[in-house]
């Protein structure tokens, strides 16, 4: 009897603490779930396995630091895994006239005009154009490349084609 009363007193003593911890755990669980839901989209790699596979060709057929027309993710793929350079990708804060550059690269992918795309690629000294089979982000919005213009052999030459197309800039 005395033992039961002592146990009841002990339970009463810790009950408010347990209730508080339970309430904190309940609300914290909700915040943790929301945090993970918010973080998951940042894990989207954007780049495709075929782009990673194409880097073998890049290493064998291009020189280090050679410049490709790329969106941001394509550029970072090339610089991070092959030490090649993209027209976009990396630390934009240190780049002069970066907003004009983004507009130009956006136009290279978005334009239907081969000569316009070629002239802009030349303006930046690009030797290749990276056209993956995915949406591209050149700084302003996600869009698909108007890829048909790169098949104009007066300006470009298809050099690699396996769900990523690499065109040589003539």
């Amino acid at each position, binding site marked *: 009897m005395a033992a039961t009363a002592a146990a009841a007193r002990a339970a009463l003593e810790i009950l408010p603490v347990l209730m508080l911890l339970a309430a904190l755990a309940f609300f914290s669980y909700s915040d943790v779930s929301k945090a*993970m839901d918010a973080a998951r989209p940042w894990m989207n790699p954007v780049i495709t396995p075929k782009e990673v596979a194409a880097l073998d060709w890049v290493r064998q057929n291009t020189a280090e630091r050679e410049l490709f027309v790329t969106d941001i993710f394509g550029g970072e793929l090339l610089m991070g895994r092959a030490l090649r350079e993209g027209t976009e*990708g990396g630390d934009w804060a240190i780049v002069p006239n970066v907003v004009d550059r983004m507009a130009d690269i956006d136009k290279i992918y978005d334009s239907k005009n081969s000569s316009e795309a070629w002239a802009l690629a030349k303006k930046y000294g690009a030797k290749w154009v990276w056209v993956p089979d995915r949406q591209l982000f050149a700084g302003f919005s996600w869009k698909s490349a108007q890829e048909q213009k790169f098949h104009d052999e007066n300006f470009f030459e298809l050099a690699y084609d396996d769900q990523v197309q690499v065109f040589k800039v003539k």
Partner: protein
Amino acid sequence: MAHAGKTKGLGGAGRQWAGTLWPLLPLAAAVILSLYTHSIVLSEFVAPTFGNTGIHVAAERHFVEKGTYPLEDYSYGGGIPNIYVPVYRAAVAEVAWLTAWDFDFINRAIVMLFAAILPLGFFALGRRLFGTTAGLFAAFFTALPAELLIYTVRPLPQAMGLVLLPLAFLLVFRAKPFPALLFSFAITLVHQEAALFFAGGAFAYGAAGAALNFACREKIDKRFILSLACWLAAVVTYLAWHFSMTGTIAFWELAQFKHHEGNIMEFGALMEKTGWVAPVLGVLGAIIAAAILFAKAAKTRQDAVEGSAAGNAAGNAARDAALFGLVLFAAGIVLVKNDLVGLRVFMDRFLVYLQQPMLLLAGLGAAKLVDCARDIGNVLKQRK
């Protein structure tokens, strides 16, 4: 006395467990929770690419393959000086060089390592400032803000900066000159934004602490002098780095300043990126810290005026800890709302730095609630 009562009848190991080792269990749980939330870094076929992770890997790979830090940046077609601070990149490159592991593997392993250290750092700092219970809550609360997870779950220098900041602040608060200055130097060369928060916080704490000492008629504590020294070390380190890479110290000429990169932080966005528990308990903790600060400061000043012996070391430590939490919180708010002073740079990016003192204060708030619940329990027990 409470511990003595609880440990009566236990053996030596039992007494040690109940007295000092019990926090290890909840601390381990906090680390496991952090590992769980960060495990999403393992979910895709490559390490995360969002957040310009590739530019860091480029520098790391260059480091390993060429044996030097690239002086010319790979960004946006290259041809420009590489001004990015090198410590994080050098650390990853060194691991790659020593192990020959793949960069994807190393980067994800480093994220998991940071995930384990993050709650430990908050526990260590929170415990030092506000006690063991507050430190444990702060360790758990690192899993709550979305923004803190987003910036520590990707292999970025920001992640390393965020993990090192609580440790650096701990060294400053403990007034350990050599390690604190070493961390000031290291953090500055890990990540610029982390360095800005560290330097701003250290300067504000040093200045506010010196003013407090003056108001309480005390001599300036070495903790505050060290704080100012750490600020100076961070400033000199960054300017020296910037000058060595660009030939100028005019960092305000960067595109980020010119184009005012960053979004204004409104209350809704703050809550969305922080959750509810940390801000609510953080505000409660700030109120409690302010009460401690003013009460203890008033007592010290009263003692000084009356000429009584200045033996209130414990009171002064609690006062200085409260000041530390509040000053860092204020520094975070100033950075997040820097648009109000016309700077308009990275307001949203600084939110994750505001969250750091917020979590420490939330730990204090939660610990005080536990104290209240315990008091209620004692009353119930006596009434029964």
